[in-house]
């Protein structure tokens, strides 16, 4: 067996902090194995973790790694990717960190779709703090904070993360090893935000309370609960393991609109001299004509020239070209009115 993946782990810090039988070790190992296959190492990869048992993962990776405050690894990863697009950025964290305290960041980082990969060790419990109910704890489960069974239904990460394309959501377990590795590989290679929901076990602080004696019994339970679905999917049912993904074609940014000035033929328009124009001043029932850039417009219909409200700034029968250059409004106001002639 090829053990060269071990160079990606800080073995000098072993033994690690996790309990025997915990699924996190499998997550760390398999991610390292796939990284090795892909040639990812400390020169081109950064790992980011949050808080919790799973938050210790990045510290065991032989990379530059971040151990952020609780719930914030996604934001940190996004910022790193923004500044250093040449680096591969991955998040190694858990369900409590990503979906509960970091839930808002999950919504918005996935919406902004940075090219990062998230591995979520989903063990349905807060393990490090002793076994309190988490956001993904199934309804009815007894935990330290749900002594008579969890009242609320769990957060369905798969549903949330597959609502807005593009998305990549994979669900797998630490038991279905080949499938697990395929998901890791595809997620790491996905361009954009990819999320791998890894159903994992916490035997000591969840499993035993549920009646399991060993981690292996929990793995068999995973096998009963889930089945692998092959092929392209855009959604996954709650009992399915697989990859749901969707791409959207990149919509080109709308180019800034260029000002299109109406082209009006000057031929055939009635010529006006300035004296003639001055007669159309709106007094005694005469129409109001105004000149702008050599053209004469009929502004009689403008509410600004009616009765008492008559506009104070401009008088009828004038050439407005200079006035409009300094006016607070644009010239588009005048194009709305009928063209009646041209200046000589």
């Amino acid at each position, binding site marked *: 067996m090829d053990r060269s993946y071990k160079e990606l782990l800080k073995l000098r810090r072993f033994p690690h902090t996790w309990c025997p039988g915990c699924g996190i070790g499998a997550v760390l190992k398999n991610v390292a194995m796939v990284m090795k296959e892909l040639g990812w190492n400390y020169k081109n990869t*950064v790992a*980011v973790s949050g808080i919790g048992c799973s938050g210790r993962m*990045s*510290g065991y990776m032989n990379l530059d790694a971040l151990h952020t405050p609780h719930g*914030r690894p996604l934001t940190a990863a996004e910022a*790193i990717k*923004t500044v250093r697009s040449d680096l591969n950025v991955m998040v190694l964290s858990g369900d409590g960190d990503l979906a509960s305290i970091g839930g*808002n960041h999950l919504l918005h980082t996935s919406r902004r779709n940075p090219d990062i990969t998230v591995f979520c060790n989903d063990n349905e419990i807060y393990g490090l703090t002793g076994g309190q109910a988490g956001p993904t704890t199934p309804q009815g489960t007894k935990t330290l904070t749900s002594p008579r069974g969890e009242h609320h239904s769990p957060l369905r990460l798969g549903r949330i993360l597959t609502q807005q394309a593009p998305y990549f959501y994979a669900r797998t377990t630490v038991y279905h090893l080949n499938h697990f590795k395929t998901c890791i590989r595809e997620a790491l290679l996905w361009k954009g935000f990819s999320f791998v929901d890894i159903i994992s076990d916490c035997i000591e602080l969840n499993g035993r309370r549920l009646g399991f004696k060993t981690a292996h019994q929990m793995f068999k339970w995973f096998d009963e609960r889930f089945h692998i679905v092959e092929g392209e999917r855009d959604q996954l049912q709650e009992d399915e393991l697989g990859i749901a993904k969707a791409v959207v074609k990149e919509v080109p940014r709308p180019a800034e609109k260029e000002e299109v000035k109406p082209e009006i033929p000057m031929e055939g328009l009635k010529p006006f001299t300035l004296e003639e124009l001055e007669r159309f001043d709106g007094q005694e029932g005469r129409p109001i004509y105004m000149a702008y850039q050599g053209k004469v417009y009929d502004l009689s219909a403008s509410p600004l020239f009616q009765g008492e409200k008559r506009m104070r700034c401009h008088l009828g029968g004038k050439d407005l070209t200079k006035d409009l250059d300094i006016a607070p409004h644009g010239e588009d106001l005048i194009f709305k009115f009928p063209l009646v002639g041209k200046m000589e």
Partner: protein
Amino acid sequence: MKRLVSGNEAIFQGAIRVGANYFAGYPISPTSEILQQAALYSEENPGFRFLQAEDEIAAAIATISASLAGAKAFTATSGPGFTLMQEALGWGHVVEAPCVFVNSMRVGPSTGMPTQPAQSDLLQVKAGTAGDVYPLAFYPNSVEECFRLTATAFNAAEESLSPVILLADAFLSHLYELVDLEGSTLHIVPRTKDPLGSGQRLFTGAAHDKMGNVKTSDPVNYREWLRELKDRHDRVAERYPFFEYLPCKNSETLLIAFGMTSRVVLALKDRFSIFRPIRIYPVLEKELEEVSQSYRHIIVVEGNDGQYASWVECALCQKVMKVSCLGGGFKLKWIQSQIEDGLKGVGR
């Protein structure tokens, strides 16, 4: 060439001139203009990265992470947003991320009076986050100083390897003054930290040793680490002992004021001596002690209920008089009458 510039613009331009290339923020009065300028600037300069985050928590985390990734990063907010950023600030001190947090203060607590100026986040700057931190904080009182001190804040951040706070107030943010930004020169401290992707380091918020090994139950290691952190900040602070002292020959009274309040009490400079701390943290203890020796009365005039006055009392080991301008009211006449009343009370 001189032109009219607002405090917010001066802060943004100062950051750009000193090489800032990352900004993350969330809209809040009175610093939204900095966010808006950053958004526009990033559209025109692809080397400058910008994030309008979902909240101030994310903005602060992004700022620190971008700094670790190699960017000169900054963010800007006001009191309520600064409260949300406290978590990240504590983290920034522990992972040693050089970056700048601008806090333009408005009346608090909570939403308070969003458009009214205040100076009430002073204690929050020093003691808002869990544990002991030793932040550096500067507080300008003019648009020109906003520009220069932003650069100073970035430099001090690189030297102290920590988030440095630039304080301002709603008055200063929206104050327009004639300044020549393009013509002024700034000292720039280059990047001091290797960016991510060049080693096998762990940047953790947990207590750790010099190798980055997590040590969460070792008091000796923790004490060593904290002493080193404090020493480093003290060393850097010594390079920036900024204050302004306007002595008045006949006065037995020293007014201490900073930021916008110092602009208001400047009108009293012919009657009282005025001391204006520009470096708010670490507190200018030595300088305060020296200056205050020749005065019978010391009055701290500030836009909060005695936050800086308590530091002055600690530094001088004596009670001082307080004039608290609360709720955005900074009228000279009122301040003057408060000073007169106070002095009458103690027998002038």
